[in-house]
């Protein structure tokens, strides 16, 4: 049962208020007519679906009715951050890997 911070309502709210709306940062091709069927198919259906850090969209359906993004671990279900539409994540699989590495090195020293 996720507990999700809505960056517009500025509060953490229950999962029941939200609906999940898929992978974030998939931009609509600027000129659909000029791209191949394959590229169009990729845009329509193909997803990264990682086991781990995922950037995804949620819709605050029962709240402010804003879409926003979340960086969530699809295995632990930990939500690392939520951020507004148009913004970029500050936490990614890469930054987490770097943090983990740094922590390990810290332990070692």
């Amino acid at each position, binding site marked *: *049962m996720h507990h999700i911070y809505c960056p517009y309502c500025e509060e953490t709210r229950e999962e029941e208020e939200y609906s*999940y709306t898929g992978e974030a940062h998939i931009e609509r091709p600027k000129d659909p007519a000029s791209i191949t069927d394959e590229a169009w*198919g990729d845009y329509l*259906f193909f*997803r990264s*679906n990682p086991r781990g850090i995922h950037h*995804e969209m949620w819709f605050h359906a029962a709240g402010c009715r804003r879409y926003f993004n979340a960086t969530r671990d699809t295995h632990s279900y930990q939500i690392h951050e939520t951020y507004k539409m148009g913004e970029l994540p500050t936490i990614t699989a890469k930054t987490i890997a770097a943090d983990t590495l740094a922590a390990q090195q810290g332990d070692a020293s």
Partner: protein
Amino acid sequence: MKKYSGFSLFKHSLSHHENWQAAWRSPQPKKQYDVIIVGGGGHGLATAYYLAKVHGITNVAVLEKGYLGGGNTARNTTIVRSNYLWDEASKLYDHSLDLWKDLSQDLNYNVMFSQRGVLNLGHNLQDMRDIERRVNANRLNGIDGVVLNTAEVKEIVPVINDSQDIRYPVLGASWQATGGVARHDAVAWGFARGADSFGVDLIQQCEVTDIVTEEGAIVGVQTTQGFIGANKVACVTAGNSGVMAAMVGLRLPIESRPLQALVSEPVKPIIDTVVMSNAVHAYVSQSDKGDLVIGAGTDSYNGYGQRGSFHVVEHTLSAICELFPMFSRVRMNRAWGGVVDTCPDACPIVSKTSIKGLYFNCGWGTGGFKATPGSGHVFAHTLAHDEAHPLAAPFSLDRFNTGHLIDEHGAAGVAH
């Protein structure tokens, strides 16, 4: 392989069951195989079994990161049916149903396939139109099915709430008498034992960490037990398919979602058939142990956690109590989740890929268990011939680029 029978049981009982042989070997991986199957679930094991049995390809390894049959095979509600809407899907599932009918004998392992019939309920006029459409399509494809009215449903399931004054009354149902349930673990173990008897190596606790290619062609896999070579690698990894694809830089039209199920405490038999309702998201049958086995809807988010959110279970159980008011006093014993690989058209992917020697069999979503023998059978053909089995051809990856989707949401829904 020593044959199982009532006689063998009796014989072994005389020696206190001390002399049973292992159902399968636990071999060390060889350096090189003809085919590596990644994923030791029901589909992967069935693929190995049919590769060996039908195509004579036995230099095969099944690599399983955990234990055999430990993923969705172990977690589903075991429903078997073939009453899908579209020709492509119904023919594939019916092929599977045909294999189910003789599977215990074929494997010399009782998979307890029990054709106790499957009801798909309709609760509004559009449901009933869809049911008519689907059953008619099934009938003309030679798949059994009839449309029942409320009274006929009540006759088959006397405990169902047939009141027409409830929020979503039962208006009727489709009935596939040849559908039913099977013992999920036995299916995995039966295929495992069968494949092993042909010489297939079943290697557990062996996680594939990378798929190795050279010049666009498969050369093997990197695993927690070292590198293992093969020119053909078949990924049958269900919810983890996206993870496998990412190893070679591919994306799939798949999202992995939690799907929850639950069982009640065992009670004396009260319901003989499988009852499914897409409209209110509730599916129930009763096991031979007496548990009410109930499937819920998928959670909406991507999740590999093998668990979902409580409100999904709440939703399902309120629907169950509405359909079966006397179930209200029974108690939920255990709830769990699986990771289902859902496709945009609720149909599987049984396909070659852009990388030579790399194959995927995935995307079975919420309904993969029923397809286990059929999926393995057609996929083995695809692997053996490097060309899709005719029944598998419509399920290639390129349908997502051509637009030739086979939209089974109506029939598959969140159905199991």
